[in-house]
């Protein structure tokens, strides 16, 4: 699984990095961004889905692994 924050949609609510700090972090203006290349370790997949579901701007995409 891989997550990515759409920088055009993100408005910096911060719900992703509050919900799943292992997967997301804040940039210098408080917008969210995925850590590294956004790859989600298997034990954090559930957390990733919760973060996606809590983004008020629906700015996070989540690609399920094949």
């Amino acid at each position, binding site marked *: 699984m891989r997550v990515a924050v759409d920088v055009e949609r993100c408005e*910096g609510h911060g719900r992703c990095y509050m919900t799943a700090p292992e997967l997301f972090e804040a940039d*210098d*203006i408080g917008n969210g961004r995925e850590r590294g290349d956004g790859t989600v370790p298997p034990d954090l997949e559930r957390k990733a889905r919760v973060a996606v579901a*809590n983004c008020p701007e629906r700015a996070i995409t989540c690609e399920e692994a094949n």
Partner: protein
Amino acid sequence: MAEHPPVTDWRTDFDHTDDVWAADPYPIWDELREQCPVAHSERYGGVWLPTRYDDIAAIAYDTERFTSRSIIVSEFRPPRMLAPEGIAPPISSDPPVHKEARRLLLPIFSPQAIDKLEPSTRAYCQELIKAMGDRDVVDAAAEYAQHIPVRVIANMLGLPEEDADVFRGFVNHVLEGVSLPLEKRAEGMINLFGYLQGHMEDHMANPRDDLITFLLESEMDGKKLDPFQVVRTIALLLIAGIDTTWSAIGASIWHLAGNAADRQRLVAEPDLLPVAMEELLRAYAPVTMARLVREDMDWNGCPMKAEEWVLLPFPSANRDPAAFEDPDKVIIDREVNRHAAFGLGIHRCAGSHLARMELRVALEVWLEAFPAFELADPDAVRWSGGQVRGPRVLPVKINV
């Protein structure tokens, strides 16, 4: 609040400053959402009131047809010549100038910057608890919640802490004085800007390590900010940061005072607080914003006229059953909670990370000091009306 005649029909003649709305707006919104999802009132020169999540979101995102030139509904519409910056940038600004005015503020309010304010905020909350002495009943709104954001924002800006009552007077005037006659309202604004002007001039002569100095030294488009813009931005930070956070802290304490099971769970599981806070923010979101209609238009069947207001009741969006399961239930471990308490789109509350830190620390300190508390007199609780709703009188029995 009583300057306007009471409301008899919420579908055609609503008034968000009505006492019934202040006491409990949720049944009003629930009924409108079902029967008249975009209501209209002739008051204030014309106001629209969407109550469904999707409509509120659509208007918040539509910065083309709805302007933020003014975001507080009153009889007074700021002159169009103030656009596109508006009276208090960036909250009152439209694209494209909005972006840069906001960009200036965001680093100051980033989570990393806000973390540094946590120890002093905690110490101040503890001081407030200590000052309560050993009484059985305290007013959690007047003696606790209201002081926290005033102190924090005064310190950030570099304004004297002892002027707390002065700031609260300004805030009260701007947010709750919306029914005052125009001359009175203008007088209050002039006093506010005069006060800030004085402090700005003092900062120009004596720069220091605070937000007023930072703004005075900031540049946009390679030029120093116009001092008038600095004053307007300071006014925004002062006004937007006080009543709102005060309301969120008060409403959270009110909920926990009336719901022993939630209170006990948070005392037993303090790590749940960040999730519980999002639920309290959803259920009791304090802030309703507003826009002005830019041009005459038909909006989803509503004949909107230029310069009419549109209220954006984010607290109603947060109670829409189409967007949230069991929206009227407070579920403190609600896992999926895409609430709009801090708005949606480009005007997302720039101070939301500060507000969350203050709310979390205020609740942590309160729960540590008073693991068991309840409403001393539920009928004595008073809520503010208008666009920022929260308890203003909140007698709580501590140490029960």
